[in-house]
């Protein structure tokens, strides 16, 4: 496949707050038409990074480039980027339409065109009838849409969204996520989407950028990241399963002894010597219940605890040694039942 053209490049950006470094030489690229999701825990510097890209805050070191050109001398208002703020930052002294038209007015477009395009943008987010309302009278979801319309109306060459769905309820979030994805796909505008919510990230992103310790720890399509989280932190942050400590007892095929028993992890690394400690990931699914323990590995015995109905399945926890493994069942099992489960070959992954 041909390499798609990079529009935005963040190169070795450093930033500290009150002495503690927040961004430690973070680097990544964004291709044309791509939606990348910056995913990381709260306080990992994601919002700060967006402000640096927008030019609202200076980086201490490093560069932000647009189509190969350093943006350092370009003022925020000359960058042509759109930024949708956390909690929206709508102008309280302006009506809905005036908020949306703001960026167009800044381009000194004719009045008529400004109005037409602002109304278009409002219509696109489904708020055509709201133009004369005061933004302070809107609900959270409506404010979110106005903020999105405001950011989209000037047709920015890059759209940045900072936790845009942060404080909304679930139903509204799902609906707005779908809207967002539709609008972004329609526009082909490259987008950077910041969130700490993995479901949101999976729903919207072409590519995930996982930020930890001020750097991109893992980058890839959601499928790639899920197939191979690469780092223990990523697996944990994405809640992909349980991390298990184990020691290599055979190199080829790889077998490792853990408190859960002998496990046969999938491994992309070249070689692990016998006696080396590994961190393994035991994924949540898929599992089968083993009535008779015939196999020598990937079989976990334990006591069932906490069974809860999930609509299409039952979520149960298996207590085994010091670990608590969550797994899904098609039929309920009474808590306290002793059980052996068989982990599928792809369910055990070697992380180190």
């Amino acid at each position: 496949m041909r390499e798609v053209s990079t529009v935005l490049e963040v190169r070795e950006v450093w930033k500290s707050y009150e002495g503690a470094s927040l961004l430690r030489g973070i680097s990544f690229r964004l291709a044309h038409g791509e939606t990348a999701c910056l995913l990381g825990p709260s306080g990992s510097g994601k919002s700060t990074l967006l402000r640096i890209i927008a030019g609202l805050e200076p980086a201490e070191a490093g560069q932000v480039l647009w189509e190969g050109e350093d943006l350092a001398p370009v003022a925020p208002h000359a960058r042509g980027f759109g930024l949708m703020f956390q909690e929206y930052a709508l102008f309280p002294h302006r009506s809905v339409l005036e908020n949306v038209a703001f960026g167009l007015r800044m381009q000194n477009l004719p009045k008529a065109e400004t109005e037409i395009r602002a109304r278009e943008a409002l219509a696109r987010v489904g708020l055509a009838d709201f133009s004369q309302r005061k933004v302070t009278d809107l609900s959270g979801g409506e404010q979110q849409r106005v903020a999105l319309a405001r950011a989209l109306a000037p047709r920015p060459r890059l759209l940045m969204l900072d936790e845009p769905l942060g404080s909304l309820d679930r139903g509204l979030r799902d609906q707005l996520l779908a809207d967002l994805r539709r609008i972004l796909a329609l526009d082909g505008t490259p987008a950077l989407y910041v969130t700490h919510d993995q479901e949101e990230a999976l729903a919207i992103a072409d590519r995930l950028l996982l930020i930890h310790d001020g750097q991109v720890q893992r980058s890839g399509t959601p499928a790639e990241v899920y197939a191979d989280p690469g780092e223990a932190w990523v697996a944990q942050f994405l809640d992909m399963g349980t991390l298990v400590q184990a020691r290599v007892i055979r190199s080829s095929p790889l077998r490792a002894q853990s408190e859960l028993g002998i496990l046969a992890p999938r491994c992309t690394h070249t070689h692990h010597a016998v006696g080396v400690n590994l961190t393994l990931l035991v994924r949540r699914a898929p599992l089968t219940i083993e009535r008779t323990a015939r196999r020598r590995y990937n079989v976990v015995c334990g006591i069932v605890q906490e069974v809860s109905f999930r609509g299409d399945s039952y979520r149960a926890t298996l207590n085994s040694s010091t670990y608590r493994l969550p797994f899904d069942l098609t039929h309920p099992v009474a808590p306290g039942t002793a059980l052996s489960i068989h982990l599928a070959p792809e369910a055990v992954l070697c992380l180190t």
Partner: protein
Amino acid sequence: MMVRAARVPQASLGAGGSRRSFLLLVLPLAFLALFFFYPLFTILRLSLSAAGEAQPLALSSVFRPLGFTLWQAALSTLLTFMVGLPGAYLFARFEFPGKRVLRALTTLPFVLPTVVVAVAFNALLGPRGWLNLGLMALSGASVPPIQFINTLWAILAAHVFYNTAVVLRLVGNAWAHLDPRLVHAARVLGASPWRAWREVTLPLLRPSIVAALVLVFLFDFSSFGVVLMLGGPRFATLEVAIYTQALHLLNLPLAALLSLIQIACTLTLTTLYARLAPRVSSPSAPRAAQEASQRPATPRQRLAAVALVGLLLVLLVAPLAALAARSIARLEPDRAQRTSVSAGLTLSYYRELFVNRHEALFYVPPIAAVRNSLGYAVATVIIALALGLPAASALARTSRFGRQVDALLMLPLGTSAVTLGLGFVVALDSPPLDLRASPLLVPLAHSLVALPFVVRTLQPALASIPERLRMAAATLGASPWRVWREVDLPIVARAVSVAAAFAFTISMGEFGATSLVARPEYPTVPIAIFRFLSQPGALNYGQALAMATLLMGLTLAGILVIERLRLPGVGEF
């Protein structure tokens, strides 16, 4: 009306609200009625009854002071904002070393008594000031080369010096509470810094800017001590004219007419203000204040910050430093010493304050004035807060009724202090209200002056508290009083301490009303300074300097103490 009646739930809610507002406003309104409207009414009645015998009034004796008052107030306000607005921006948005100290310093001149400001400018630029004495020593001239005192420039400089703090406080506070992301949003949407300021910052700050404009203008409009002591006989504002007519020329009808005009002017201004500013108290989270301010990052910002800090320092510190230094410098021979004296340091001006001389201006050592002033100031803080807090919390929930009350509460601000004092003297010296001998008379007068400031400081802070916080507290079982104590009070604690600082320092510095109300044997510090300054001789001048320096120190101490007294844990909201 019928439409309103149809909305039953809201209507009944509103009725309950205004009943509460009314209860909260009973005390402040009673206070105003008794100590503001009643004395004013008495003055007018007196002057009208006297008007029959009076000779016809010359129009120029009315219009000349009025014209000059408006002219100098407009000029002063313009100059004050040219310094104050950049300063407010600096304080709201940037962290820099010495910010706290500079903030305290910028408050100091505002709260300093007009007499101190007058003495300070005198010590710097007056005929006996540093500059003139220095130039005389250099050139050997026997006449002061710089004529500053008794010029319009002296009045303007003192007004800028005096009122910059109003802009810094009112606009700076609002600016600090403005969500910086709004400007960021405008910038990302393509607005240049100037455009973002004009389209976003300015409209959102407009209520506070208008409030500050009105306050500064009213201040300059009713300025008394500064004009009297720095402007000299050529420049008479309405206030000075009232004072001169009432006290020196004993022309009460003309004084009453002048004060009537002044009240009309200020009433017009406040009504205009109430129309212009439908107070959009933008509900921004209090925490935004801290997130918003950062160190100046770019070289240009740093340069601008340094230049601005420098300008504020020179403007605000130079006269005060000149005053303090001049009070311990012996540069001229004393009264008793006819021969030339070697220049040097001296504490004799201070020592003299503790001496009860036979030929002195008072029956007590001058230092007793300090004790009097402190007592009055504490009483004023108590009275002004006791009245201002309920008034502000009633006004924070805007209603039509509240608007009118707000305008009423602002009235004493624009009313000539001399008129207030005169009103006290003529109205409160006979039954049913004979307070002539009461020690409360002075703090009552001071509270009247301080109340508008207290309300203006508290009300925006109270209005910025999201209603849902109160609702949350109420659903958690807090009674209305508990809600006020647990939610409102901690959030407005800073505003309360600022309000207390205002009340305290206004009381310490009040001159116009006090000059009429204070009993001769209980002089306040400003009165003492004024008497010293109006006497000839180097020793009297020196004592005025020493006293003014003491008052400056006391005021600074008062501010520091109040800043410290902020409730623990809420200092950094």
